[in-house]
């Protein structure tokens, strides 16, 4: 039994239940919808300065989409535990790390594919909506385009962000095994950092919280303006999220190896 068999088995499991397909469809459509709504909610009246980061704004939906990616990843492993399928899986494939690696690879690939569609759709929505809301080229707002290197970094980085969220979620849910608890922990980890950082009055603590939070640091990849004021630089921020994901996968792998299934 090698990796390709493991991948094929996991692909069959994912493909033959209805849930994952629906979740991926929801990921693409809802991410684009939230991005479009956020973009439509912002306008720049004439004769005012609008310090808006168009790239970040047009990719707002990623903050919603990540929750769907998390559910997808959580169900990929906890579904096996709740039905007892995990025992069959591990009997057929005794090398447990291979099973986890196959799941991780497959989930990351799915998140990359769906995320790419979602990000491209969001940027397209921004390109169509923003000029009608006062963000016109003659006022210094370039039309959003993936041919622009910074914009490509923001959009492509968002896709990588979603893939890393899938890995982070897979790692945590492999440790926890219960879907409700796992998704609670993941969403708390993602959403609590920006909320708590917002009320911490000490500048340094505020910055540190934003630097270590997986969502606050990871989404720095979407910033294209005023980079010097960011708590963490775009790629370093994505690196922080990658570290979170790696740590979670490592801990998940250890738990899977050491604990009875």
């Amino acid at each position, binding site marked *: 039994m090698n990796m390709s068999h493991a991948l094929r088995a996991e692909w069959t499991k994912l493909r033959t239940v209805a849930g994952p397909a629906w979740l991926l469809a929801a990921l693409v459509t809802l991410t684009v919808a939230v991005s479009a709504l*956020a973009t439509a*909610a*912002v306008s720049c009246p004439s004769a005012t300065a*609008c*310090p*808006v*980061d168009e790239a*970040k*704004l047009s990719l*707002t939906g990623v*903050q*919603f989409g990540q*929750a*769907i990616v*998390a*559910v997808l990843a*959580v*169900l990929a492993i*906890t579904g096996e535990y*709740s039905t007892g399928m995990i025992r069959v899986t591990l009997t057929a494939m005794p090398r447990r790390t291979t099973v986890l690696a196959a799941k991780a690879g497959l989930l990351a690939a799915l998140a990359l594919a769906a995320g790419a569609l979602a990000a491209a759709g969001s940027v397209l929505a921004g390109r169509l909506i923003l000029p009608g809301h006062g963000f016109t080229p003659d006022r210094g707002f370039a039309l959003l385009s993936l041919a622009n290197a910074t914009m490509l970094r923001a959009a492509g980085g968002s896709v990588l962000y979603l893939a890393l969220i899938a890995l982070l979620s897979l790692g945590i849910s492999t440790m926890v095994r*219960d*879907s*409700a*608890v*796992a*998704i*609670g922990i993941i*969403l*708390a980890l993602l*959403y*609590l950092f*920006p*909320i*708590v*950082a*917002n*009320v*911490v*009055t*000490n*500048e*340094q*603590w505020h910055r540190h919280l934003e630097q270590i939070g997986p969502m606050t640091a990871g989404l720095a990849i979407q910033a294209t303006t*005023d980079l010097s004021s960011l708590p963490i630089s775009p790629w370093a921020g994505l690196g922080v999220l990658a570290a979170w994901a790696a740590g979670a996968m490592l801990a998940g792998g250890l738990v899977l190896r050491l604990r009875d299934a």
Partner: protein
Amino acid sequence: MTATVTPARTPRPAGRDGFAQLLRAEWTKFRTVRGWVIGAVVAVLLTVGLGLFAGAGGSSSCASGNGPARSGAACAPSLTTGPGGGPVTDSFYFVRQPLAGNGSITVRMTSLTGELPDLTANPANQGLQIPMRAGLMSWAKAGLIIKDGTSEGSAYAAMMVTADHGVRMQADYTQDTPGLPGALSASDPRWLRLTRSGDTITGYDSADGTHWTQVGSTRLAGLPTTAQVGLFTASPIDAVITETFGGGNNGNEAPSQATAVFDHLGLAGSWTAGAWSGDYVGGGNYAPGIGSYHQAGGQFTVTGSGDIAPIPSGPSAPGGPSITITNLLIGTFAGLIALIVVATLFITAEYRRGLIRVTLAASPRRGRVLGAKAVVIGSASFVAGLVAAAAAVIVGKSIARRRQYVFPVSWATELRVVVGTAALIAVVAVLALAVGAMMRRSAAAVTTVIVAIVLPYILAVASILPAGAGDWLLRLTPAAGFAVQQAATAYPQVQALYTPNGGYYPLAPWAGLAVLAGFAALALAAAVLLLGRRDA
């Protein structure tokens, strides 16, 4: 003799289908699942712990000290306190004399002009002379004032003409009553009068000096027999109020000034005119200190800057770090997530284990089963929320006071915030239960509820969306419920950034909670309907 023998019989058990029995059954389920009880305890600990963290706000800030006005060992900034206990600005130019006993003062005001700093200039030029242009702050004000003394924060009552808000009577910083509307000009002057009778000050206005209308009346408890009476001018600090695009309202700010022209100054009653003297009241760190007056014939020209007003809480409050008790309840979000998980599992676990079929066989009236579950999980969450919120606020305040300024609130507000938080948590738990009953899948239900209540808050408060769009999110989504935690007071007579980011919600506290409760009620109704129609 035959005796009737009653056969021995065990007493018939009371009906098992009563609502009380159902409640007992559901309560037994809840308290005997260890994970759920642990979840509720974790919710309380997270709520309190994060609250204390927010209260501490970073003790290291005391050592590094990057803000102004920190007093010695204590790191909390010292703000002037008004008679009501809240922080106030009290700086203006005062042309005054001490007057004893009862009496009245009348004046005609013919002009109010001013100068504004040119804040579009490069911020890097701060420290250099900021160029001024003609213009008035919306709440620039001038008129008559009777004041306890010249110390900052002392009691007062004043009749004034404002730049854009007509004649007002204001007293003790927070009171504000409108009088004659409209702008002032030489051809359309305003007459103002203040009358003292014991502790009571009454304000009047008039357009012609003969027909007077009472604007308001106020009692200044403990006003000494001899009060400072006279003319004043104030004009608030001008700040660039940037919309919170991407959070952070880094404002450029500089003092503005106003100049008022008065004539027909007259005293009546036991007040007799002595010499007028002019000086600037309030020399705090935030007082611009601009002011002068000159008297020619019967005409007084008074120039002043500063403000006599309450300080609203929020990021624009001066004097270093400051928080409200709302900030101490930031852990509510963590507690909510934990309780959402527990409340969802309270129903979805029954589906996963097949227990739901036993439950429904024992109690075939399905709607009542869900009702009993809602009562149990709602009450348990309410109690957990009450304990957590009370502890976070009480302990958090004592920690926070040593490190940052905590805006004082009345005990009624504090009670509403704490009880409201408990109610918020209970309503969200019921919402999670209902969504769980509809979806039957834990992961999907937990995600739906968390995303529905937490994400709109993040987008409104800590994201790139402008305040206007954020306001709508906090009106229409379940996140509206957080309004019940608002401790900040918005003052119409003070221009400031009243946005969600600063702790100001678009809906009134209970109205916001009602929106959330509406979502929960709809979800519960839909869940009851589905539970009745579908196979378990």
